[in-house]
């Protein structure tokens, strides 16, 4: 990579305003052939906005984008594609009901052509898959693919058009460690062939591993551009957040209390799109955090559903303080179970409701907020104000539609709501916290915040079930860890007895055979 | 002398057979310079009362309309404007002091067309397509069937209703289905039926209006409704200041030329002479008051 060669991509003085908010403020960047540029920043710093402008999804208010010295017309993805820019969006943009092939070839032939050259397309996809290690069945329906496979389809989509600049917006946020590895393998392959890559991620380790240069955004401004080799995690974190970030960690072993919740050979049938559970047994004690590791799709969703009161086990027992509860979320909430769902947009909050309405959504039976079916607005709004303050939910006030909150702030709202339910049966604090992937897509500051809340909940005597694919997170927070594979669960063992290696092996299926599970308790 | 201000309020468009007859009679009176004529068509049930009131307020001397589904409202308005003459198509009774009624009492020529149909059918099968089974339709159908039976006791009838006043394609389908079942003469209560008959080379009998000009080789005979006598009678009363609550129904009878068997026209000579003799005899008997066509208003059914 020569400093003198002209850049493939040049962003000059990009500014973009959303109403009152300046999402991008005079940002200028360049990208060289064969270079990986990491884009860092807190949630809402303006990363996605910038790359969306670059690709033509958004139209910048000012500034220009040049590819190979030629300016792109603004707001025109077709032009960007034609100039060799490929983009993998933060949220996948694939049509679930169409085949992989259809998703890839769409837009590559003029619309008025009467035939699709499917055979040639298949050959090309096959070739790309082989060259870059992106195995995927072109005839599969996208809706039936795993997250990792979809990611591969997205990358093939870009490569199929001969992209020379590839933008990856948080590609690793929902990938398993194995999938991340294979993605990085592909990336290395790509830059070897001369592609230039913009890579957005909140995971600083990854950033330092794959990128050549790092650009940090804060509040829409470019605050620094540094060579990856000359920086460190703490430095980057501080640049992003503007202050030092302390990652909280477990403070030694907590004395565990009585059993709060217990699964006894609980099974759940698999349904389309989610794996089942097979005779799972697990005890959760007051004051401890139990981590569940596993590659997604191995039954974590079913486990979270059972522990959130959304589904009943088809066999076996699930008890809370020794008693079984019906699968009604209301009853579980009332019994002091704080639930943090995996998908905050789909399950965690109703985007169209105001923040204060979402804040009390789990307590519509609570006489403090509701009398005779009528909402007592004053106490309810007071509660929401308090929640927003205590959990540092930023972005508008309590009357703004929840959908406009960034992911991190929405997560804080959900966390705050779950942890502040004062149950009907007079439990002032949650007794059980069920957290599924609580830090997906969050920036480092928000992650630290969520971790601190979970630790505090445990310290206050709650049992915490932490379902996560982030092994670092599990190792940092959990007292005990169990691994899920194919709907079965290993016994939960003290965190110290696991290593990243043994965890990985267990996640791949070793050690969860019938014999060991059956006497787990 | 000053013209009488006449307003008409119709619930359907003026092409609709029934209303077209009233519209025609009033237009003729207007052409003769007897009246000032204004009208509203397709007036919905919800608007009917208001439109009546507005015409009454504007000083109409005579208001003509069809109050079948808006009986209550129309009578209320009439009570509120006792100086205005109301002449309403209605199945009900006149109402003092100023609400008169009329109806399409053309069962007599219907009977006669029935005779012609009964005599002309070769398959002894007649098809009848109606919009809705309402009295105005039913009594004509019954008279027609009676007439056909008189000359041809073996004749069979297939009756169906299409549940719409304005769906000629559907009426046509119903008629086609009847032809497929063997009917060779169709009683055309709706637009579309004669069309089906023409396409299949069958015959049709017209009703209320004369559609023979459109279907010269198809429409054998029609039972015509002439509103002119009714309108003339009412106008005369209004002019004389003697309009009261009366039943003008009789003016739709053949005796008053309110109804007639349309001229055979293109079918002159094609209807067997002996049959026409019988028909003419019956016609005379009716005019002489020696024969009364029975009025039956129940829903007609296909013969088993």
């Amino acid at each position, binding site marked *: 990579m020569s400093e003198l060669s002209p850049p493939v991509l040049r962003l000059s003085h990009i500014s973009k305003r959303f*109403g*009152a908010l300046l999402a991008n403020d005079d940002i200028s960047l360049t990208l060289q052939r064969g270079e990986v540029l990491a884009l860092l920043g807190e949630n809402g710093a303006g990363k996605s906005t910038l790359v969306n402008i670059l690709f033509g999804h958004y*139209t910048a208010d000012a500034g220009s984008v040049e590819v190979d010295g030629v300016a792109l*017309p*603004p*707001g*025109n993805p077709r032009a960007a594609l034609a100039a060799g820019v490929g983009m993998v969006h933060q949220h996948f943009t694939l049509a679930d009901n169409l085949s992989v092939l259809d998703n890839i070839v769409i837009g590559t032939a003029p619309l008025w052509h009467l035939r699709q050259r499917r055979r040639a397309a298949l050959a090309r996809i096959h070739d790309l898959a082989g060259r870059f290690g992106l195995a995927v069945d072109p005839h599969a329906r996208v809706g039936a693919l795993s997250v990792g496979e979809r990611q591969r389809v997205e990358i093939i989509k870009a490569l199929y058009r001969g992209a020379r600049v590839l933008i990856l917006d948080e590609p690793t946020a929902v990938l398993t460690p194995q999938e991340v590895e294979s993605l990085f393998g592909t990336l290395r392959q790509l830059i070897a062939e001369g592609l230039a890559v913009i890579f957005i991620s909140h995971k600083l380790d990854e950033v330092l591993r794959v990128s050549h240069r790092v650009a940090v955004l804060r509040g829409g401004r470019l605050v620094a551009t540094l060579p990856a080799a000359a920086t460190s995690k703490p430095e980057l974190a501080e640049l992003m957040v503007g202050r030092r970030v302390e990652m909280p960690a477990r403070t030694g072993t907590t004395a565990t209390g009585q059993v709060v919740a217990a699964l006894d050979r609980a099974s759940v049938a698999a349904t389309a799109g989610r794996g089942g559970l097979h005779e799972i047994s697990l005890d959760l004690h007051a004051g401890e955090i139990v981590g569940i590791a596993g590659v997604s799709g191995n039954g974590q969703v079913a486990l979270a559903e059972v522990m959130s009161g*959304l589904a009943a086990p088809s066999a076996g027992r699930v008890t809370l303080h020794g008693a079984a509860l019906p699968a*009604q*979320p*209301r009853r579980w*909430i009332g019994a002091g179970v704080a639930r943090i*769902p995996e998908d905050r947009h*789909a*399950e*965690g*909050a*109703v*985007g*169209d*409701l105001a923040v204060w*309405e979402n804040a009390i*959504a*789990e307590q*519509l*039976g609570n006489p403090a907020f509701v009398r005779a*079916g*009528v*909402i007592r*607005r004053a106490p309810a709004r007071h509660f929401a104000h308090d929640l927003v303050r205590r959990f540092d939910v930023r972005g508008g006030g309590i009357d703004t539609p929840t959908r406009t909150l960034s992911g991190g702030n929405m997560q804080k709202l959900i966390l705050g709501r779950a942890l502040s339910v004062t149950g009907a049966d007079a439990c002032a604090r949650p007794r059980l916290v069920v957290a599924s992937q609580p830090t997906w897509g969050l920036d480092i500051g928000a992650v630290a915040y969520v971790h601190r809340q979970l630790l505090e909940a445990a310290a206050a005597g709650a049992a915490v079930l932490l379902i996560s694919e982030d092994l670092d997170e599990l190792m940092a927070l959990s007292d005990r860890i169990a691994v899920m594979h194919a709907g079965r669960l290993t016994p939960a063992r003290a965190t110290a007895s696991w290593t990243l290696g043994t965890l990985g092996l267990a996640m791949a299926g070793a050690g969860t055979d019938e014999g060991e599970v059956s006497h787990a308790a | 002398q000053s013209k009488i201000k006449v307003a008409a309020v119709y619930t359907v468009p003026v092409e609709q057979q029934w209303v077209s007859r009233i519209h025609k009679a009033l237009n003729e009176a207007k052409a003769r310079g007897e009246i000032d004529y*204004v009208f*509203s*068509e*397709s*007036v*919905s*049930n*919800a*608007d009917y*009362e*208001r439109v009546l*009131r*507005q015409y009454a307020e504007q000083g109409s001397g005579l208001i003509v309309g069809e109050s*079948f*589904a*808006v*009986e*209550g*409202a129309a009578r209320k308005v009439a009570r*509120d404007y006792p100086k205005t003459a109301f002449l309403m198509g209605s*199945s*009900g009774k006149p109402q003092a002091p100023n609400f008169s009624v009329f109806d399409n009492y053309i069962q007599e020529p219907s009977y006669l067309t029935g005779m012609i149909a009964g005599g002309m059918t070769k398959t002894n099968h007649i098809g009848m397509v109606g919009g*809705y*089974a*309402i*009295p105005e339709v*039913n009594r004509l159908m019954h008279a027609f069937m009676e007439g056909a039976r008189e000359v041809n006791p073996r004749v069979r009838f297939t009756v169906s209703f299409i*549940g719409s006043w304005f769906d000629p394609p559907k009426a046509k389908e119903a008629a086609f289905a009847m032809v497929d079942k063997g009917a060779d003469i169709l009683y055309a209560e709706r637009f579309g039926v004669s069309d089906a008959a023409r396409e299949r080379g069958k015959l049709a009998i017209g009703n209320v209006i004369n559609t023979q000009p459109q279907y010269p080789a198809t429409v054998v005979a029609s039972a015509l409704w002439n509103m002119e006598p009714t309108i003339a009678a009412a106008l005369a009363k209004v002019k004389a200041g003697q309009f009261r609550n009366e039943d003008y129904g009789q003016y739709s009878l053949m005796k008053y030329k309110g109804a007639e068997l349309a001229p055979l026209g293109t079918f002159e000579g094609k209807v067997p002479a002996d049959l026409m003799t019988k028909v003419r005899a019956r016609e005379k008997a009716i005019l002489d008051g020696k024969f009364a066509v029975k009025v039956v*208003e129940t*829903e007609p059914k296909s013969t088993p």
Partner: protein
Amino acid sequence: MRLEARTAVSRTALVGAPLAAIAVTLLICAALVAAAGAPVGRAYLLLLEGGFGSRFAWSETLTRATPLILTGLAVAVAFRTRLFNIGAEGQLYLGALAAVAVGGQVDGAAAPWAASLPTGVLFGAMVAAGMLAGALLLLLPAVLKLRLGVDEVVTTLLLNFIVLLGVSAMLDGPMKDPLAMGWPQSVGLVPELELARLMERSRVHAGLLMALALAALVWAINRFTVFGLQMRAAGANARAAAFAGMPVGRVTLLAAALSGALAGLAGVVEVAGRTGYLTLDMSPGYGYTGVVIAMLAGLHPLGVVASAVFVAGILVGADGMSRAVGVPNTIADVIVAVALLSMLVATMLTRYRIRFDRAGRVA
């Protein structure tokens, strides 16, 4: 061309948009009026006068608005919960039929079982029956949607036809008024059950008060109650609502019942307030117009009242105008349709601005 959300909506825009929409409507329809050779200025003056210009005009407009408020509310409630009820027309007719079944005369007097009841009780029973009938009719598509995923747009639409044919069969059969000379209409209501007139020599009846009260009630439900919150939540994101412990199925069914009941009540009110008996042509599409009204109102219950009066005024005024200047009376429907579309566009432009990108290409 693309849309960009506005951050602040100015008050002038909020007031100006509907006015601009009305202006555009009048401009477009002026062409049609002129095409008929009528004087445009006078036509519009007459329209205004006929809809809002006199006591009589107001009484007619309000009479016409009464059922529209109720069907508009019915649609607003259902649409809020993302239950696309296009079947208010059918619910209205079934409600009317039920009202007649309960409050209809038998041999010129109240039915034997009802004769001994106090009028108030019988009235209550009649209203309840109508609302229940409407509610049950919408519950069918709602249950089909919840349990089997059957699209409710289509089922409610089809049910309109079925109900109308069913009513037709009833009016031809068991519920036919034997005194109606064979004409398919129901028996009349017991006279005591008819709604009181609000103004002398006019048709405005107490049904208007019922409609207004219900608009206020629905507004209060939406704004103050748990049920209102749950309806919005279930409509916006059923999964998240269920996760938070809301009984989504029950809420949807209750909303459906409320919506159907409101439309059913529209039928009751028309029979008891305006016609006195049921015929097949009683409603000039109140149910479908209800959709228009609810959307003009942005699904807001109080807005429903305003837009119902507005639409009713146009219908009434334009109808009279068409007669006075001699243009075809379908001009009323044209004006309402154009007004609806321009109002939709105008209100959208208060929330969004249209930007033409520098590329200039209209995508």
